């Protein structure tokens, strides 16, 4: 799949944002700090959501995306994110202005933040045509990134360190199963064309020498050569370095370094998530 910057930024920032907001919702902060921390959380989440609009051909109709929550994970995600942001608002105001509201909205918001991230993940995980995505490890990866991201930003290393470990394991599992997913899905050039009954199928000539949407969007082969290296980068930057930073450094420096490396790692992981995901339509082009 095409690793479009808008989608990468969307999933990474909104995930981290919702993770952080959830943490704020659960734990509670106060005063000006609250203003900045809630502001950071909202900033990340909203920036992510705004980025996603860049992916749309007709963003002016984006409100229509709220209509199909019964069937569409994207629609559900839209609802979930709005509800989440809405639920957090009173909590944030209360924390900032010291209104003394209980944590009810925060807890509810935290749950909805999880639901939102889950919906985001399901947008991908539901797609059977991309076997690497169509797997139970995808929501855990998205959730682990969100929670770990939130914790890294919080700087609470006792919680962050184990969560980063969980993230590391989740990633490893995701990659492990991902590598086998396409084969397990059973789609081959033979099944795609139905010509397996005649013999072994390969491409003789492409249907067009010019480009098209499918080739750009779904059949992105450029990045895959670097998959192994990017995987290393993702693991090192989103798990190892933040852990080291949080363990060895302290205070604001630790958070800044950990968050920065974590972001790099997350972006790398997400880039790879798209770049190495093979859509079965590639079979028609003899490219995966």
């Amino acid at each position, binding site marked *: 799949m095409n690793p479009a910057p808008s989608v990468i930024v969307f999933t990474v920032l909104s995930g981290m944002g919702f993770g952080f907001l959830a943490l704020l919702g659960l734990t509670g902060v106060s005063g000006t700090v609250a203003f900045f921390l809630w502001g950071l959380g909202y900033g990340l989440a909203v920036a992510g959501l705004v980025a996603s609009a860049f992916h749309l051909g007709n963003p002016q109709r984006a409100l229509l995306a709220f*209509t199909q929550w019964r069937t569409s994970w994207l629609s559900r995600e839209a609802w979930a994110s709005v509800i989440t942001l809405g639920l957090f608002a009173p909590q944030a105001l209360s924390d900032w202005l010291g209104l003394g509201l209980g944590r009810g909205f925060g807890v509810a918001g935290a749950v909805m933040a999880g639901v939102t991230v889950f919906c985001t993940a399901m947008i991908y995980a539901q797609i059977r045509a991309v076997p690497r995505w169509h797997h139970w490890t995808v929501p855990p990866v998205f959730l682990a990134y969100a929670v770990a991201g939130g914790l890294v930003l919080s700087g609470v290393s006792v919680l962050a360190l184990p969560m980063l470990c969980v993230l590391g394991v989740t990633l490893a599992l995701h990659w492990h199963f991902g590598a086998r997913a396409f084969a397990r899905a059973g789609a081959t050039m033979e099944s795609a064309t139905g010509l397996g009954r005649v013999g072994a199928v390969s491409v*003789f*000539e492409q*249907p*067009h*020498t*010019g480009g098209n949407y499918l080739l750009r969007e779904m059949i992105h082969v450029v990045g895959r050569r670097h998959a192994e290296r990017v995987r290393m980068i993702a693991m090192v930057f989103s798990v190892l370095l933040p852990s080291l930073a949080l363990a060895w450094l302290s205070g604001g420096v630790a958070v800044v370094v950990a968050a920065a490396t974590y972001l790099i790692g997350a972006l790398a992981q997400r880039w790879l998530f798209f770049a190495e995901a093979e859509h079965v339509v590639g079979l028609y082009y003899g490219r995966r």
Partner: protein
Amino acid sequence: MGQPKVETSPKVSDEVRKTTCYMCACRCGINVHLTSGKVTYIEGNRDHPVNKGVLCAKGASGIMQVTAPSRLRAPLRRVGPRGSGAFEEISWDEALATAVAWLKPLREEAPEKLAFFTGRDQSQSFTGWWAQQFGTPNYAAHGGFCSVNMAAAGTYTIGGAFWEFGQPDWAHTKLFVLFGVAEDHDSNPIKIGIGKLKARGAKVVGVNPVRTGYNAVADEWVGITPGTDGLLILSLIHCLLEAGKIDLDYLARWTNAPLLVNAAEGPEKGLILKNAESQPFVIDKRTGMPAPWDGAGVQPDLGAVWQGHRTVFQHMAERYLSADYAPEAVADRCGVPAGRIRALAAELARVAFDEAFELPVAWTDFRGDRHESMTGRPVSFHAMRGISAHSNGFQTARALHLLQILLGTVEVPGGYRLKPPYPKPVEAHPTPHFVAAPGKPLSGPHLGYVRGPENLAIKEDGTPWRIDKGFTWENPFSAHGLMHMVIPNAHAGDPYKVDTLFLYMANMSWNSSMNSARVMEMLTDKDASGEYVIPRIIYSDAYASEMVAYADLILPDTTYLERYDCISLLDRPISEPDAAGDAIRWPVVEADRDVRGFQSVLLDLGVRLGLPGITNPDGTAKFKDYADYMVNHIRRPGVGPLIGFRGVDGQAEGRGDPNPDQLARYIENGGFYQAHVPDGAAYMKPWNMAYQEWAVATSFYETPQPYLFSIWSEPMRKFQLAAEGHGFLQPPDHLRARLKVAMDPLPVWYPPFGEAAAEGYPVHAITQRPMAMYHSWGSQNAWLRQIHGKNYLYLPTKIWEAEGFAEGDYARVTSPTGEIVVPVAHMAALNPDTVWTWNAIGKRRGAWALDAGAPEANQGFLLNHLISELLPGEGRVSNSDPVTGQAAWFDLRVRVERVGPQERAEPAFEVLPRVVPKGRARV
């Protein structure tokens, strides 16, 4: 939210205008939809005989052709050096005055100094007639570099040809064997036909080194080695003869098999024996005595020997029963296992004889014998350039016709059927005319069918009359001329120099020439005095093709939706076996540029030059424009360009007075007319009196012309006799040996000439037409170029593996005369000694209003750079079939080496400057 309401009955357009497609030369009927005066949609005309409603990929993209930015906009005069592409726009008056200033003195002093050649011209009967009025012998259209081998071999053998002049009896045939066809001029009819066979589950066999397209759907593929079809066919004939699986009755009645071949040593040896009335005769089985070949009730004896003279049948049998033609003897050379050849022969025999059927159609033959039914033999063949474009193509096509004849499957139900005005024997065709005289028209049409050395276009001093050396000892049956030799010969001054080269619709500086790079040099070379070696070039194109840059004066044509055209029975009509047909184009939209229909421009030029036939005695124009000509020109009394709606009342068919309302009637009728072959006349046409009489009535000839198929070709034997030293007209010595072989009166096979120089070049290199592209002119089409924007050289597994090729690689391809570096791809379904590519995808940078970075011009390539227009060795002998002068495109032999990944193909030529503004997306 409910399901949205969809408008399921939108209005399609304001108006539909029916005309004829010209995205290629197939001439399908189209419905052009217009909305607010603009073309918005094009679909096939269901009532049209050629395409019956379907359209190919090109036809359905016509809208992108008539809106292409490459369309020329106004007459152009060259202002920079030739080839630089520097032009200025001029007015039509200026353009025509310039042309007249160049041409008038030529006509008055030496008309042959004008060489007028046209490409895929659909108005040859008009352009040829114009050249005839001008008086130059130097006229021909594209047939010489295209498929004259098929046309000539067919005409000399069965009085009709493959190409689009006949077709299998799609309704009845059960076994269809296709030799060397990727697309053909009959694009849609062949596809429709194959579809019919497939729907019935009939069997298709493809004989082709490459398995794509029609060959891909063939039930059996014979991946033959190029240039060896003749040998394969003669081997099939061997098997059939050996087993006695031939149609003796058919041979005896309808072919010259029972005629006697003169056995007496001397100048008549090998000619058909004639009686005192100069008529050939047969031996009647009933009496054992000579009897007229066309006598009623005569039963010709195929096995007769009369006074030592044997029948054609015996000569033929003797030749092909020889062990030289046994499958085992030819298998390696053809790249086809012997068992496969025998199995194919068996299948042919089985279907022809075991599945024979009778059509209950009574008919009377030319002898007066009545038959109660027609015997159907459901085996049919078709062939085109895979056979044609080799230097043994004429004889190979003859061999294939012989195979058809032996199976008794030409003009019978289930077999191969000719389309009116064919069948037509050689005798009913004109001979060539070529004698030029200052200020005078030529005495007859340029192109024709030579009967013997006496018809050759050779001057008393032995030099050719024609610039292309058509109708000389080098290519005696060059019935379509040799377009590919015009520029090289004019450049070499061999046989003489010309002053003005006038080209129409032929991209001669690129894909239509052999050795394109050298041709560009020939067009720009100057002599010692600083004059161009070819002093003047006038060109008519509709688009910014590669050739435009090499002309001095451009006469911009309209596109096919903006002009009148005439698809006439006088040249290449749209007939079907059951009906003669012709068609028109008419301006369904107005041109929005300063361009004019070329035929009207020619008429205008003719008037300015005062050409007879075009000008009234008072110097005024005989025809207002081409539309007027189409209606009012009279070729023979009562016969004009169109056969339909003739006579003042529009009721006459074939013959009749001009009808001022004729074009309106054609338009009303969908742009075409069909004259239906009467019941009982649809098959056995050469011998069927009902057909013969209808053909006379419909104007194809003046008297019935029944004839026998020529297994033994007497015109050929006459040339062979000359080569053996008989007769007054003698060939030059250097051509004697090849004439002896090539002019064999019975079909022969000899290795294509490419083989002689092929030491060290083990691989055959050929091209195929892509179905979705038309030569060079498809690339300006924004839809089609997305399908075929670049081409690869396809390599067989053997070469791919031996050289260690990988995806993305380029190869250096070397022939005895050139070298190119091109992208490659692997193909398993390919003859192991053959490489191929799509024809004419490669473009010159800057041409066709494409960006210089266009893939066509950077990764796309031509094989033409590797092909020489001359044969190796002494003298300037053209790389053509020795009988017809057909360009031997597919004799090419190469060597292929891996060079690894590369950015672009070589050679790369300089960017041609634009002659039209840059194009944008259509809105």
